[in-house]
């Protein structure tokens, strides 16, 4: 049975070209990039080349790219580093209710330690009230952290507009762009973002590498100390193979930039339309025109997500769900709850997330099996009349 992998917001396949680029750095090119000798020095060049490749993907300067170990480290460090750099002068943090826990938990941690934290609500489409955001900011606000794209629904926040508001108010702005980078064009020359997180394994690099973009002039305390690496911001010997891999993945992303807006978006739309058509009592979570091109989150009423996922698994299809049971928690995902998705639907919300490797055959396979699975589970459901 072939695997139909439609869970690319969870993680992606490492591109074969990325593996190829990394391989020498596990073998002959094992030098330390900080060494004085040529053997190590040549490795340094590859690290700096990767930095340029990532900078180009974001339309940033290479000096603004800090390599980290993952998106979570980038998110944590952006918020903690900003707060620490302010040395106790500001005590207010603004974020949103639908952030990834890598952001939300850090904010809540500060909330328990003397900070005022505002978690901005979202409407039924998962969108923010920008006026409310603006009104929330005060002289005491240290940082605003708002995600570029939501991992569960793919909903896009208007990052340029949020950035303008923050700039006007003189507040540092961080965006968790882990889901956005690689799927939509990003141009940081035009988007007033101070700090941005990205994760390698969401864009066909391996797990274990991330980036924190730090705009020139942004005050940020170092987050690992004890070495001069990464402009003294993150000490520790560079993870050379993974940095090189991420650089190559960034380059490939640019080469395939139009895939998402054309082919992948068309596959997503075809899948979505077919499922909504074949399954009554189903609807899309999030606005149709303000989403990532690769993501659809469909609520199937009266059935439970874990059951759907296990049935999909039986026919080789990988997807994910915001249902309570899949996470081991007892409540549906905080994103579904913040959007006010009714319980009848939140527990049965399924996310399909495509990549540039997704084929039309894979989409056909899902369209073939999904309606039958929903029907079978609804036959079991007490909410559906026989």
């Amino acid at each position, binding site marked *: 049975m072939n695997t139909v992998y439609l869970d690319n917001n969870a993680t992606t396949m490492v591109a074969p070209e990325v593996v190829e680029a990394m391989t020498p750095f596990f073998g002959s090119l094992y030098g330390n990039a900080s060494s004085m000798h040529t053997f190590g020095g040549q490795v340094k060049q590859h690290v700096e080349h990767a930095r340029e490749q990532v900078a180009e993907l974001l339309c940033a300067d290479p000096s603004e790219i800090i390599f980290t170990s993952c998106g979570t480290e980038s998110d944590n460090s952006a918020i903690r580093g900003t707060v620490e750099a302010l040395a106790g002068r500001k005590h207010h943090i603004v974020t949103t209710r639908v952030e990834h826990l890598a952001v939300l938990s850090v904010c809540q941690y500060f909330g328990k330690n003397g900070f005022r934290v505002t978690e901005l609500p979202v409407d039924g489409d998962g969108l923010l009230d920008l006026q409310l955001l603006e009104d929330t900011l005060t002289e005491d606000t240290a940082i605003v952290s708002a995600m570029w794209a939501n991992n569960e629904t793919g909903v896009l926040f208007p990052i340029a507009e949020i950035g303008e508001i923050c700039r006007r108010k003189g507040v540092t702005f961080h965006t968790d762009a882990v889901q956005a980078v690689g799927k939509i064009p990003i141009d940081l020359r035009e988007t007033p973002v101070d700090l941005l997180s990205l994760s390698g394994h969401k864009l066909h690099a391996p797990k274990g590498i991330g980036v924190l973009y730090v705009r020139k002039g942004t005050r940020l305390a170092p987050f690992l100390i004890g070495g001069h690496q990464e402009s003294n911001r993150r000490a520790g010997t560079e993870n050379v193979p993974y940095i090189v891999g991420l650089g190559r993945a960034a380059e490939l992303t640019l080469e395939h930039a139009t895939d998402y807006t054309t082919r992948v978006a068309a596959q997503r739309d075809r899948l979505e339309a077919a499922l909504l058509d074949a399954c009554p009592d189903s609807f899309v979570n999030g606005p149709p025109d303000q989403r990532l091109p690769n993501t659809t989150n469909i609520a199937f009423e009266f059935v*439970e997500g874990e*059951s759907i996922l296990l049935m999909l698994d039986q026919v080789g299809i990988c997807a994910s769900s915001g249902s309570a049971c899949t996470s081991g928690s007892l*409540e549906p995902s905080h994103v579904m709850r913040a959007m006010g998705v009714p319980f009848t639907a939140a527990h049965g919300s399924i996310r399909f997330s495509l990549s540039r490797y997704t084929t039309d055959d894979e989409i056909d396979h899902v369209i073939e099996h999904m309606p039958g699975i929903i029907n079978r589970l609804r036959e*079991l459901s*007490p909410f559906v009349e026989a």
Partner: protein
Amino acid sequence: MWDYTERVMEHFRDPRNVGVIPDPDGVGEVGSMACGDVLHLTFKLDDDKRIADVKFKTFGCASSIASASALTELIKGKTLEEAEKVTNQDIAHYLGGLPEQKMHCSVMGKEALEAAIENYRTGGTVKHMLDGEVVCTCFGVTATEVERVVRDNDLHTVEQVTNYCKAGGGCGGCHGEIEKIIARVHGIEPLPTESAPTPKPKMTNIRKIQLIQETIEREIRPHLKQDGGDIELIDVDGDRVIVSMRGQCAACPAANFTLDGFVGAKLREFVSPDLTVEEEKP
């Protein structure tokens, strides 16, 4: 991904007795949409008052579907008195076990059965209600339900209680209440809560010795005597309490444990948290 047994997966893929019996003798429905699982159970009795047919419908995860399927297989052909003896453990056992965090699925099966039997006995006039005050407001779980899962499954932590009946799995505001119920069921005095620390004035030595003496008489000696042992207070030196174990205790290999785990714990609880207890060296 959950580690489901093959039997759970088999009952999930091919659940037995799905449906609704028209004109049933008993109907039970438990759970709620908000909680993510609902189980609807109907049964029909034959002339010998045995369960001739039973059917279920469920909204829920794989283990709740499998638990409901297992329940129907377990009770078919039984009298209601026999069926009532089926526990949530029986359901889990029938399925070759459930992941700990999914035990509440088996409890839901047991509760649906009770609701249906109650419905039958009251002539269908009473809608099943579990009495007792609501402990967990997030999931609407009553003290009676918590008490029962604690007793039936020998649970000792809040986390276990959450796994078995969801109580405590939301905001967490009821964890203290659940701890008290656990302590009550197991006959243990609940530990004083952190929220109300009453700063004790420093005791005089005389008062301390008096309290130690009283605690030994009231809390310690009666328990040791049950096991043929005894204890004598030898000296109090600052916070060091020196005692001598007598009778069976003197020769008992568990005496060291008794000394600190029981005698020391009691003295710390009733006199001062700083006390240590030692046995007199001969």
